[in-house]
């Protein structure tokens, strides 16, 4: 039986049991992983992650059950469990309905790469070795501590009792290296360099290794700097964590409705610097988080979030949109089949500017650049504080030296108003956001 047939079987079974409505989410995932440890291969795994979950509603009472075995028998058990759980629960007055079949959805271009699907573990291993060799060749001081290279094929099928019945296959290649450099017995801070892509056509393990080595070597011999408040150039990753993450939290309709967003009720207001425009595009061609439909089977779409600093819209799944009698924006999200849908950005894109990183650096009189952020961001209030990793001091338009024991602190919502420049070199980050480097002002730089 196909995944979709199992899901259809499950929904029928729930209806027979007496469910008001039901939804089945089936998933089959095959991952080949190569794990590096201490610069050499530690293990390789082929994981087949499969399972089905049932969301069942009886008189506004919700039950949810899942099983990692795909068979008629285990599905029947899961349906019965979901029914029993719904009966034991109490009604949720906000519950309206599972989504209905609206318009048909079609897959965005480039989210399935036959080459990734056919990758053998020996080929992935070869990527890993090329990357590790590139680290050493780039600089003798640099070495790989650990890393992981994975090729994933994912198949999803969603069926519900209101006519939704869809299935999709995607591929994803992702890898990371954790790298350090040593000179005269002193180690640099840990560098995390990665790549995440729908297609390996342009993937270069050598480039990945070289970038990691460069960053590691650049953070040797760090010096302290006096504490000051001023300009901080956030490379793509720290910009994603510090700026994109609280934005994502604030435009999540569930948070808006539950008073957990400072942007609740502020559509049409200027909440950020006019240089900042943000969209969520679930149909982005080759987008790392693109798909034809969201995790409830609702077609993906492009949703405007911020236009020149003005708040334009929120992201919805069917539960939050039903509460406001609106259409879902196709942003239902599940981490995997075993979790309930929440609201989440698909590909949240911070629109790039037109300056390259070097050009931005050349315009900074005094500031710091940070390439990794190891800290905490409170998404509701926007407070952030943490260690600036692979950070360097910039003076008179030039990088002076690496920084040690330096922390940064501030508030994201203030920082969004204090954006000076948005860079042009956008990248897909691990945080469901495409983010360029961003220069912000008035950040506290705290040192010993």
């Amino acid at each position: 039986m196909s995944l979709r047939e199992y899901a259809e079987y499950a929904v029928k079974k729930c209806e027979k049991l007496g469910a008001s409505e039901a939804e089945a989410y089936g998933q089959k995932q095959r991952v080949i992983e190569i794990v590096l440890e201490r610069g050499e291969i530690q293990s390789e795994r082929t994981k087949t992650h499969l399972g089905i979950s049932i969301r069942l509603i009886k008189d506004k009472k919700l039950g949810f059950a899942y099983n990692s075995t795909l068979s008629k028998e285990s599905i029947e058990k899961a349906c019965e469990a979901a029914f029993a759980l719904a009966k034991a629960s109490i009604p949720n007055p906000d519950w309206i309905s599972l989504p209905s079949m609206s318009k048909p959805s079609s897959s965005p271009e480039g989210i399935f790469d036959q080459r990734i699907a056919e990758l053998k573990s020996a080929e992935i291993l070869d990527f890993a070795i090329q990357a590790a060799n590139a680290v050493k060749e780039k600089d003798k001081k640099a070495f790989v501590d650990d890393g992981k290279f994975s090729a994933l094929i994912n198949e999803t099928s969603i069926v519900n009792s209101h006519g939704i019945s869809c299935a999709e296959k995607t591929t994803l290649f992702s890898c990371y290296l954790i790298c350090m450099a040593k000179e005269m017995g002193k180690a640099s801070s840990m560098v995390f360099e990665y790549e995440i892509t729908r297609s390996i056509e342009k993937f270069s393990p050598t480039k990945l290794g070289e970038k990691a080595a460069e960053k590691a070597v650049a953070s040797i011999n760090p010096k302290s700097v006096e504490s000051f408040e001023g300009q901080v150039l956030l490379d793509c990753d720290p910009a994603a964590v510090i700026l994109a993450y609280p934005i994502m939290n604030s435009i999540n309709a569930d948070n808006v409705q539950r008073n957990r967003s400072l942007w609740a009720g502020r559509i049409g207001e200027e909440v950020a610097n006019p240089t900042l425009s943000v969209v969520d595009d679930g149909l982005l061609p080759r987008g790392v988080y693109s798909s034809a439909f969201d995790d409830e089977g609702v077609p993906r779409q492009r949703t405007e979030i911020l236009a020149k600093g003005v708040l334009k819209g929120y992201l919805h799944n069917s539960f939050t949109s039903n509460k406001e009698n609106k259409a879902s924006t196709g942003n239902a999200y599940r981490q995997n089949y075993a979790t309930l849908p929440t609201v989440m950005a698909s590909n949240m894109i911070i629109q790039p500017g037109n300056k390259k990183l070097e050009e931005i650096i050349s315009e900074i009189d005094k500031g710091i650049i940070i390439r990794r952020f190891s800290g905490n961001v409170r998404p509701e209030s926007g407070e952030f504080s943490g260690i600036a990793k692979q950070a360097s001091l910039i003076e008179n338009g030039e990088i002076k030296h690496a920084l040690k024991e330096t922390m940064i602190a501030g508030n994201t919502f203030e920082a969004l108003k204090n954006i000076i420049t948005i860079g042009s070199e956008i990248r897909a980050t691990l945080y469901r956001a495409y983010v360029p480097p961003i220069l912000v002002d008035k950040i506290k730089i705290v040192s010993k």
Partner: protein
Amino acid sequence: MALDLLSECLEKRSEGYVEMRHHRRETLTITVKDGKMEAVNHGVIEGACARVLVEGSWGFASTTNLNRNAIMKIMEDAASLGKVSKPMKKRIVKLPPLQVFEDTYETPMRKDPNKADMEELVSLVIDVDKKVRSFSPKIVSDNISLRIIDDKLNFVSSEGSRISQRIVRCYGVVTVVAKEKGSLASAYESIGAQSGLEILEETPLENAGLTAAERADKLASAKAAPGGVFPVIIENRIVGLLAHEAVGHCAEADLVYGGSFLADKIGERVASEKVTLVDDGTFSRGFGTMRYDDEGVPTQKTIIIEKGICKSFLHSRETAKQFNVEPTGNCRAWTFEYDPIIRMRNTYIEPGDHSLEELAETIKDGFFLKGGLSGQADFTGEFMFGTQEAVKIRNGELSESYRGVTISGNAFEVLENVDAVGKDFIMRIGMCGKEQINYVGMGGASLRTKLLLGGM
């Protein structure tokens, strides 16, 4: 039954050292958000894996199919993966001899969650939600979640071990958001243990709820703490984060081998003599407690630092052989989909004899740090973790509260600066992510030290 199937297949092995694990995990989650019931959630994952050591090279494979053919196939796949990858490995893995065990273990408990009354658990969560939301008018939102994880683990090895363990974990997590004049503050608390449902009577979820509600309410109008180096008291509830992030990771033998700051430090002084730091796989009710790890090695109490002197690292069988010591039972896997790696179990700093007042006494200008958030560490010893609340200490007296900020430091220096440890020992629950996640215990008593606050 699963154990017999694995044993049968194991007898037909062709080469090398083989270990096979079967894992069935049942998870029940009940969540209430702002008084509204989420779907009551129950699930089962089940599968098996084989790890084979051929000519000094590991291979690993897993499956969710539990029939004889599938099990035989993962054993063969693992062996062939080991062989294929061998030319790429410089390290030849050797295992030290290990006593053969035939044993069973089950989390000691009075109230088995198998016999739980679902409606009773639902109403417990609903009740906590009501109390949290009525704590103050500033509370605008909450999530109350109760989770029971029931793991059945079977282990067989070609050396002859046959081990069955059932580990039950029961915990609750609360987040609360408070609002005042356009400003939001959130707080987080948890309770739980490796235990049956009795833990919900001993440390009620309501307590965690009210602690979080009180904190969110208090911090709604508070400012963030200032930045700089300060003398601080780290609350007993988060001292385990210091033990875990700052020191524990650097004592994991795979990281030691990579050159962590504890490498070559056995027998040397690495902390103040007030500090004894332990990773204990046998700690009663600890979230990371097991009788055997996922290599079939009995767990033990491993003293990493004794009165400031570095004593031992945390080992797998493989690293124990490399370091020429006994394995410590630290090799753990998240599920059957993962091969085991070196993990902490329950990591804590042993208590001293100071009361909280005595700890505060000598601080003229500092902070009492409460409530933990996530943390990270470089193996150079530079660590950070977030705190939720920073209570100002002026001339030995606790004063106004600030919003907590991330703290950082070098583990060496921070532990060297510990000049007093409290007597209020507590063991908490935690999750640790190191390539794969796992449950850990983190514990300790409030202590006094000096570190960098990344504040405003």
